[in-house]
Each structure stands twice: as C-alpha cells, then as structure tokens.
C-alpha cells in the first residue's frame, strides 16, 4: 500500500512540485486548492499524512489543522505545515494548533521525504 498524501496549497506551482516529487518517490498524491477544499477532501481521500500551506484563501493552514484535529478520529493523522515562514513563532503557532512538523519552502526532495518519513515511517 502506498502512503497517501493530501497536499493543500493554493499555488499550482507548489502542487505540481509536490506531485512530481511525491509521485516519483512512490507516494499516492492527492491535492486540494485551498484550506476549505482540503478539509472537504479529507474524508474522501483518508490520507496517511497531510501537507498544508499556511497562507491560503478560504481557511488558512492553521484553520485546517484545527478542523482536522477537532475531528476526533482523525486527530492522530500527521499534519506537516508547508511554509516559507521559518520564523520560530510561526512554527510554534502551527504546533500549538496541532501540527506534527513543518517543511520550509523552498523544499528539496530529500528534506521533503525526510520529513514524511519521520511522521509516517514511509519508506520511499
């Protein structure tokens, strides 16, 4: 079984980059175009891990984390925050909301996979 990733980002470029990297690394890739879309898709996709951007229209990344963590049964799914903000307070805020980890944009293949490995145990 492939590890299922749900990526939530409003940037087509980032989605395509994620898709290229993840599919090549053998992940099953799904994407949503904004926070609301991501939360809506969550149940259909039932991902093993969520990667979400922070700055998005219609529900930002913090909102996504809060909603997903609020859904009881899903509360354990790892959520990685994808963000250009390397500022510590941004990470702290994400973690307070319940984020599992973070990936700093621009990301490279290795650090992306490394991050996924640490939260899903997936072997790429």
């Amino acid at each position, binding site marked *: 079984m492939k590890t299922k990733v749900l990526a939530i980002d*409003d*940037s*087509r*470029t*980032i*989605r*395509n*980059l994620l*898709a*290229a*990297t993840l*599919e*090549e690394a053998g992940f099953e*890739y*799904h*994407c*949503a*175009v*904004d926070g609301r*879309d991501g939360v809506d*898709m969550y149940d259909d996709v039932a991902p093993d891990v969520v990667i979400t*951007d922070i*700055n*998005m*229209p219609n529900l930002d990344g913090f909102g996504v984390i809060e909603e997903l*963590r609020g859904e009881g049964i899903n*509360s*354990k*799914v*790892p*959520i990685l925050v994808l963000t*250009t903000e*390397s*500022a510590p307070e941004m990470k702290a805020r994400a*973690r307070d909301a*319940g*984020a*599992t*980890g*973070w990936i*700093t*944009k*621009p*990301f*490279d*293949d*290795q*650090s992306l996979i*490394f*991050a996924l*490995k*640490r*939260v*899903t*145990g997936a072997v790429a």
Partner: protein
Amino acid sequence: MSGSIQDTFFEECEELLEAMDEGLTAVEGGDHDPEVVNAIFRAVHSIKGGAGAFGLDELVAFAHRFETVFDEVRNNKVELDTKLIQLLLRCSDHLSDLVAVARDGGTTDEEHHDALIAGLEEYMDDEEEDLTFEPMGLGGPSVPLPLAAEEEKTYEIRFRPLKEMFGTGNEPFFLFQALSELGPLKVVLDESELPGFDAMAMDDSYLAWNLTLTSTEPKSSIEAVFEFVEGLCELSIASDKDAEEEEAALAALNAAFGVSGDDSVTDPPAPFDAPAPAVTAPEASPQPVEKASSAKAESTKSEQRGPKPTLRVDLERVDRLINAVGELIINHSMLAQQIANLDVADLRDVETELEGFKNLARDIQEGVMSIRAQPVKPLFQRMARIVREASSATNKVAKLVTEGENTEVDKTVIERLSDPLTHILRNAVDHGIEKPDDREAIGKSRTGEIRLSASHRSGSVCIEIKDDGAGVNRPRVKQIAIEKGLIPENAELSDSEIDNLLFLPGFSTAKEVSNLSGRGVGMDVVKNAVTALGGRINISSNPGKGSTFTIILPLTLAVMDGMVVSVADQTMVVPITSIVETMRGSDDMINSLGADGTLLSIRGNFVPICDVASALGLRNPNSDQPPGVYLLVETETGQKSALAVDDIHDQRQVVIKSLDGVCGNIPGVAAATILGDGKIAMILDPENILAASTSSATFDTERRMSNAIAS
C-alpha cells in the same frame, strides 16, 4: 499541452500578478478591506514560494520584502497612506518585471531596484527583517565548518515524550524508524515510570526509550530526526566521541572568527547554538536547478482539481476548430450555390433545410468564436501601469479610470491592442494632461484623468481613451504639418482634419524630446496597428477640455460582413463597415476635374471617384471603360470618396483568410476569403486603396498621406 513545472510557475505568476494589480488598484481607489490586503499578500507570497523552488533568488528577495511590508499592513502596524500605496504600486510593477526577467532573461534597472528596496525597508520593522532568507542568495564568506569525520560513533539517546507530543500526531515508532536509517539501532523501552493501571491517565505519557545508535553521521543528523518533537520531549544525545568532536569544531570556529581559543569554550558563538533546523534548510539551496529539470519530466497530470470549473485548451485546437467551422460556412454557400443551379422545379423544401443548416453553422461559429473571446480586464490593468510610469517620467499626476473591463474581445485583438493603447496613453499623459500647477491655474483638479473604456457597439467593439487635458493644439499641429511639408501652406482644413493630422507618418508635436516621446514611433504606427486588425481609429478634441481617441474594432478576426463586387473580372470583397451607401452611376453624374480627376455628384455634393481596378494596377488608369457602380465610403477624417467597381453581387459573411506568409503586404488588400464557388477573393482595404490611388481629384487628407509616404 506541454509544460514543465517552471512553465506552470510563470503561468501562475501571470495570474498572481494580475490579482495583485487588481487588489492594489482597489486599495488605490480607497478600498482598504482586510480581505483585499490579504489577497495581495497571498499573491506576493505565492510568487515568492514558487520562485524559491526554482532558485530565483533575486525574485525571492524582492518578493520577501514586498510581502513583509504587506504583512505589516495586514497587522495594522503600518498605515496605508498615499505615499505607501504609490510605493507599493511601483513595487508591483517591478515585481512583474522581475518575473519577466526570470522567465525571459535580461536585466532590470539596478538603481530602481535598490531604490524600491530601500523604500520598502523604511516600512519594515528591523526585527522582522528575516535574514534567514538571504544566505542562499548572498553566498558571502563561507565559514569552513569542520567536516564530520567518517568515523563510526556510538550515540546513547534517551527519549521521553511529554504528553503534548501525542496531540501533534508524532509517533515515536516512526522517529525510531528514521533513526535506524542512520545506522544500527537498539531500542530499549523504559517503562519504569508506568503507574499502576488505576492511576494511569489516558492522555498522559509515561514511557521513555533508551536508544543506542551506531552511525558515521554527526550529532546534528540525529537532532534533525527529532526536529519536530523538540520541546515536546525530554531528549538527550550523548556520543562516545563527543568531547573530541566538540573541541575540533570549536577550534575551527574560533579560527574562522579569529577568536582566541580558550575564552569561548564554554560559550560558543550564538548562531551555531541553534538546534537541528539549520540542517535541512541549507541543503535546499544548491539543488533547485537540478530539481526543476528532473521535475520537468512530470507532466501536469498531477493537477487533479482546479479552482474553477474551467478547461485549459491549447489555443491551436480552438483555432483548428474555428478554421473547420469557417470551412463549414464556405461549404454551405457552395452547396447553396450548386443547388440553386440545379434544374429542379420545386426547391422550397431543400431551401428550408438549407436555411436551417446555415443557422446551425452560424450558431456553432458564434460558440467557437466565443471561446477565443476574453475580457479586456487584464489588458486594461496593464495600462494603469503605463499611466503611472508616464506620469512619473513627465512629472505629472494622472490616474487611469477604466470602464467596461468585462467586455469580451477576441484574444488576438487583445494581444495586438496592447501596443497601440500603450502609445495612446503615453501620448495622453505626455501631450494631453497639463502639469499639475497649470491645471490648478485653470481651475482643473491637479490630478489628470484618463478614462479607458470598452463597450460593444452593433457588432463591433469600441475602445475609447478620453483625457481631460489640454486637447489638440490645432494651430501648432497645423504649423508643424506645414513645416514638415505634409500639407500645403494654404491648406484649408476642418478642425477634425487637423486633429487627424496626428496620424500622419512621422508626425510628432513634442517640442523637446522627452523620456516618452521621440522614440521614432508616431501615432501613424498606432493607426497602422488598428487598421491591421480591421479596425478604425479617430480622434476628436475639445481645446482646453481634452481629447478622445475612439477605436472601433471587429468582434472577431475570423469573419466579417462583406459586399461582394467585381473589379476587372475579379471577384472581390469590400468590408460592409466601411461602406456608407452604394449606387449605380450614370454618365451625367460624372464630372471631370483637371486632367485625370473625376468627381461624382451625389445630391448636389461632389465626391472624388477612385477606380478600384486602376488603384490595384489591374487596369490602365486612362481606359475609358466607365465602371458602373459606386461604393460611397467614408474615411476616418469624414472625407467621403466613391470607389468605382464594375458590379455589385451580394452581401454576405465571409471567412477571413490571412495572407500573412502567403505573400507580402499588398497595397489595398487586407486579406482574402474563399467564396461559394471555391475561388479565392481579395478582401479590400478601402482606406488603403484611397491612399494608394492616384486618381483622387481633390487634395484630400488621404492624398497628402500618400504623398508623405512617397516623399
């Protein structure tokens, strides 16, 4: 559709820049709604994010500052005053330049770039200036960090999660799995703290692990594994080689910083005290280029959901469809013609069906054409920038007001309108709008206004550029035209004729070469561009009040309504839009004027006759065969002429076939079409025929124009 991820990025940039522009325009107009500011922030942010992925450092650095200032605005730390808005507008222009440079190569004005950055930094909170973004771009003096020896070390790791960790979705097991990739790992569970079952709280954490890892990796790699749980666990990592390693590292650091060894042993330099995060980030920088190329292989298949229910279609496919529909219509007329030629008594049923066929074909055609139609909004948005730049280059104050932005026009028309509009707007600022003080002196507001509007008008598109400036300085324009020999000294011209002198080739009223004018392009270039689109341009001016340029364009470049005529045994088509009236002439209506001029008298008015056949070089100008039919046409200046043709057949919609690439530019011919019998017919350009004609009797504006070209 081909498209590497980088292409996607630049495509997306266009959309983002557009959204940013739109937002800024709203902000400029006084709309400081947080959501508008947010949208701009997101647009800039996404550009930065994408640019970072492709290692476009300059773009990232600029977008970062831009974004930071917006963040301040968002958090109400900085007020959006006029000065800041102007700066942000200039920055948005610069950002699109940077995107263009990243895409197409080239350079930007460094001085301008630095000035904008300095301007932005004024608004930036010093603390917030996030320098973590810079190192990849700076590439400054690198500190030779000690290379980890490829020596195997044994690490003793104690890991005790706090209960907070479990709320974040981090699983110890996965962390261990990641650790085990660094080398052989021994995991021992320490359950000594586990209380009795009764005392156990469900959400608390009681377990701890003692791990032994043998690896050649440095300690930082192990810390990196625990990056996400830092602060959510008790963690200690000890290595058997710790002591030596630290010493070596410090020695190297001290050497690099020129600090004497002993003092700092207990107090290492702060930047390097930071834990793991530093490990992943720097790795990212040397890679982006490779990544972009390897990613290229992946196509857009990964795009599973789009933001809007739209379809991205290759333009070529649409054009093929348009061509096919054009053929269908031609085919219909061929069929109709052949059926009409049949010797059948009762054709009524067939004709009814044929009519239905025709209507369907038209419907399909309209539908297909509408695919190519796009709102003029993005074009208009770009024009706001032109006005801004022109204003600052001429020290004037002008704003652009747009109307009818949602008017849809053929994509090609929009693309080709960009240059003429740019030119007209620059002209309006440069020559039309007065200096702020001058405006004030005559009771106008200091800010000049240029109104750019688009609307549909009976089957065509009307673009209007109206300024509230000084209007055309007619005496001056006339004087220049005389000085340049464009008109004779004693020429009597109407106001409208004088205004239209601006369109003569090489005409320029600038007394001095300003930053904007004097580039060797005049309004004649604008006129040619509009004419090439099958459109017309006209100027009307009100001294002291301003000028209005009106551009009338066909809705589509693919079909038009034409009058089918015969000229020297050839079938030709004249665009209906240029014909005022058609009439059969009799000998007594023709009056000679001079040696070769002829005038047609229509209800007491005399109009110069232009024999199309001779103008096209298909017949000797002096042949005495009198053409029987006249098409009364009116030029933009309001000058009427009668085009003499041999006969008129009918009026019909024709599919325009460009002659580009088939043959060079033919004077008097705009394009070609295929008629019902499969023959090709030339589509004439009446204005051009008149300009090229040598048989016009009066010395009209067009005639002068041809003289100007010839001289």
